[in-house]
């Protein structure tokens, strides 16, 4: 069965100006309008561009698949406006409503064209709905994708930020750990510490766990692994910042930290590292 050609492209071509005006009026009257975020002139410009791109894309008579090449300009336009709206603080529904609100003026014209033929009208409205829904949902998808990008970037940043290896002195490194240690983080911590040891040739590494809220068997095991790996490379580790509760937990859990040097705070650990590398701290006036 040959599908009858949709009248939508023709209708849009014929009533372009009217549709645009009516669409703008609807948008300006709607509750979704955010004059604080988007100026009327910009809205007019965006609406006009949307309509022009829609008209262009419809010339190929493909009203269903927006993944095809002729819809490419429309897709990049939607990505653009979604990007702008994210930056200005629009919600996803406000962005999608921009596209959905186009239905009303379009349907009015379609009704006028179809006249009394209810069958044709229903078909046309269905086609238009499917198409506009796809375009509207596309903005939501873009929205989500952008959010996910932000989340991934922040995760990476957090990973980087949470594992700084600091050089305290010639041959002495410090690794202040903050936050919970899980396997993935221990891996990153271990790698960055070992690489820094290789890079600087440091003989001592102070692992400060003042900022680690909980030490359970797993965390203790991770710490021991890091210490052992550093020792295999030829660097000694000192664990500092062990709080009283943590010391209790470690003993209650039966974890043996016997082979690892521990100090109550970083200053003492630093002092020991200095002493072991034959440095002496003296006040010049004495």
């Amino acid at each position, binding site marked *: 069965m040959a599908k009858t050609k949709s009248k939508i492209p023709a209708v849009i071509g014929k009533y372009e100006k009217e549709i645009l005006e009516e669409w703008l009026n609807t948008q300006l009257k709607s509750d979704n309008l955010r004059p604080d975020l988007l100026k009327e002139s910009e809205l007019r410009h965006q609406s006009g561009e949307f309509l022009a791109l829609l008209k262009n894309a419809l010339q190929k008579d493909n009203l269903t698949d927006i993944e095809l090449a002729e819809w490419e300009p429309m897709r990049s336009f939607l990505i653009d406006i979604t990007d702008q709206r994210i930056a200005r603080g629009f919600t996803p529904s406000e962005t999608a409503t921009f596209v959905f609100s186009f239905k009303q003026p379009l349907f009015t014209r379609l009704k006028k064209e179809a006249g009394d033929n209810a069958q044709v009208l229903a078909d046309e409205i269905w086609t238009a709905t499917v198409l506009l829904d796809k375009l509207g949902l596309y903005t939501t998808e873009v929205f989500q994708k952008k959010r996910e990008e932000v989340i991934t970037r922040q995760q990476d940043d957090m990973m980087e930020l949470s594992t700084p290896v600091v050089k305290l002195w010639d041959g002495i490194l410090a690794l202040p750990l903050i936050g919970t240690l899980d396997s993935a983080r221990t891996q990153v911590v*271990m790698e960055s510490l*070992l690489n820094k*040891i*290789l890079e600087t040739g440091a003989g001592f590494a102070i692992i400060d766990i003042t900022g680690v809220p909980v030490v359970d068997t797993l965390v203790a095991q991770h710490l021991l*692994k890091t210490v*052992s*790996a550093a020792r*295999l*490379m*030829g660097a000694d580790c000192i664990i500092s910042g062990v709080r009283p509760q943590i010391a209790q937990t470690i003993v209650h859990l039966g974890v043996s930290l016997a082979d690892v040097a521990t100090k109550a705070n970083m200053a003492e650990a630093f002092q020991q590292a200095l002493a072991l590398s034959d440095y002496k701290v003296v006040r010049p006036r004495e």
Partner: protein
Amino acid sequence: MEHIPIIKMGEFLLVSIQVDLHDRMAMALQDDLMEQIVKKRARGVLIDISSLQIVDSFIGRVIGEIAAMSRILDAETVIVGMQPAVAVTMVELGMTLPGVRTALNVDKGMELLRTSMKRLEG
């Protein structure tokens, strides 16, 4: 089969492993090294593994054994320049080489041997 060269430096022996060790080569190294320790009356052994990228459980065990055997022959072993990736693998394999001394590079390893010699002598 190729052998890994053992270089005498004063009272120490230096072994630099530049190729990927396979099992037979590691065994041969063990034999050669023990022979040389006795022959050259070495007091210390430096094994430089900084070019070694892969270590399996067998090689790890051989290294541990070399250290234990040399101690019986009154020579101290220092493993030098282990790569971070190798260190992580060894730890994951559960081989922390207890009793084996380690150093970051040959210089530091030599220093370590010298100080422990001095301590022994007086």
